[in-house]
């Protein structure tokens, strides 16, 4: 449904985006990950029709963004990090105005308005002046304006930034609901948000797409890495670990309380086997856990270029 092929964008001599390609189908929430300057905003701006690519194509339902940007703009909803709203308007009049600006007739807007306000969880605020709303509600108004024209692609740039925990939880639900029948693309630097809301992840580094896939696929390698704490000598432990068939690599560190800590990389996900063998070998197993936040490890590795693509 949405296909991005060899997308490249230069700002002068600087390549902000190089040969980015991906394809997504409707019903999915896509997470765009990357450090500052990785090319996330440039990607979103091109998809929103704000700036043209230097080369490459974007097609939505077969319509070419470069050839027919005017036609595509009514099929794309965009919410930047700071919601663009007219503060002097009421919620309803603003969303109605944006619907008209997207090419809808007055009757079409009126017919769709109740559903949009419900989707954005704006019940009870319909006639409130936007200037008097909290940041969280302004974000919701931003979402309502992004979806009023029933777009095929909704782009949300940092949708949860500046929200409190309750608002973040509510926003997650709104984003999930939005994906019904369309593609939602979310950029975020909060990995937990991506974990909770996205079906497919795209990781950018220095303007290049370095990995894409589901969270499970991207973090699969991380499940092979674990930290163990045992009662026993560090040298004995490292010797035992290096001879274990499931262990690829191990780094041990003696602790002040007489125990030994080790970070172990397994050849496959053999955590249960390792635990059983450690106990059978007479090591007093105190602790066995994942070596860290799997997605965060993947993100940091990919974003800094220290890990291979999944």
């Amino acid at each position, binding site marked *: 449904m949405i296909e991005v092929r060899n997308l490249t964008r230069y700002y002068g001599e600087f390549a902000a985006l190089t040969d980015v390609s991906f394809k997504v189908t409707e019903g999915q929430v896509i997470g765009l990950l990357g450090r500052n300057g990785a090319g996330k905003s440039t990607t979103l701006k091109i998809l*929103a*029709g*704000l*700036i*043209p690519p230097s080369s490459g194509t974007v097609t939505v339902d077969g319509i070419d963004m470069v050839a027919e*940007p*005017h*036609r595509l*703009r*009514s099929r*794309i909803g*965009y919410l*930047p990090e*700071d919601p*663009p*709203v*007219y*503060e*002097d*308007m009421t919620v309803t*009049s603003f969303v109605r*105005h*944006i619907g*008209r*600006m*997207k*090419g809808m007739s007055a009757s079409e807007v009126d017919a769709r308005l109740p559903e949009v306000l419900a989707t954005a969880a704006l019940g009870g605020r319909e006639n409130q002046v936007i200037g008097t709303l909290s940041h969280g509600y302004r974000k919701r108004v931003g979402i309502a*304006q992004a979806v009023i024209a029933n777009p095929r692609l909704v782009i949300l740039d940092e949708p949860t930034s500046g929200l409190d925990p309750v608002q973040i939880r509510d926003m997650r639900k709104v984003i999930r609901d939005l994906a019904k029948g369309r593609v939602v693309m979310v950029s975020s630097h909060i990995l937990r948000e991506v974990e909770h809301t996205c079906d497919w992840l795209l990781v950018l580094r220095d303007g290049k797409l370095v990995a894409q896939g589901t969270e499970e696929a991207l973090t699969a390698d991380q499940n092979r890495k674990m930290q163990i704490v045992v009662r026993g000598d560090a040298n004995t432990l490292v010797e035992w670990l290096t001879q274990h068939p499931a262990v690829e690599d191990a780094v041990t560190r003696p602790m002040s309380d007489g125990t030994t800590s080790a970070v172990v990389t397994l050849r496959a996900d053999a955590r249960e086997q390792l635990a059983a063998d450690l106990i059978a070998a007479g090591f007093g197993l105190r602790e066995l856990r994942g070596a860290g936040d799997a997605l965060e490890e993947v993100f940091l590795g990919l974003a800094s270029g220290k890990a291979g693509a999944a």
Partner: protein
Amino acid sequence: MYTFTVARRDLGAYLHGYAGYVILSAALFITGLLFQVRGLGAGAQYSHDILETFFENCGGLVMITSILLTMRSLAEERQMGTDVLLFTSPASDLQVVLGKYLAALGVLTIMLALTVYMPALIFVNGKVSPAHIATGYLGLFALGSATIAIGIASSSLFKSQLPAGILAAVVVVTMLLGWMLSDKTDAPFTDVLAYVAYWDKHFTTFQEGRLHVRDLVYYGSITFIGLLFATKVQEGRRWA
């Protein structure tokens, strides 16, 4: 359709907030004051002289009001980040600029409509030609249209209202002084500057109740150039 959607939104912004009412009220108050001081209360005068003075007063206020109204139009969209809404809509830049132009022209029309009681008062003790009144208002409308276009063009260049207003005022005042500059220069600049003169050569005819197509063409041309300039600036910021 997009033009009217933008115009309706901007007209609402002028009339829902206090800024539009403050500008309108101040303009009407000063116009009324000048009408009393320089017109009705200035001793025995011919009715058509009072009417000419009224249009002269109104002309100055139309220019000031137009600049005050338009300095926010595109600059505020950039400042508030709402230009994204315009750029991601299927509306063309020309439609957006025209919408903003129509909204400002609408407010100006309301203001001019509210001044009609002043020429009507002349009928109490005097007599003027309705054609003179109509021609004078047409001149005010043309002058306002051109100044609004200059204001929108200036507003398209800035992210803040103040420099937009200052630049528009500088452009208008420079053109107003064209007749003075034309006296101090040699040909062909003399003719060019004399033609460009914003008021002297083109508005005084309306003021006196004389209608010349060349004056309508002059203000129409400035309106066209101003709106075209603003459209091109917007296009430069947006893709396709």
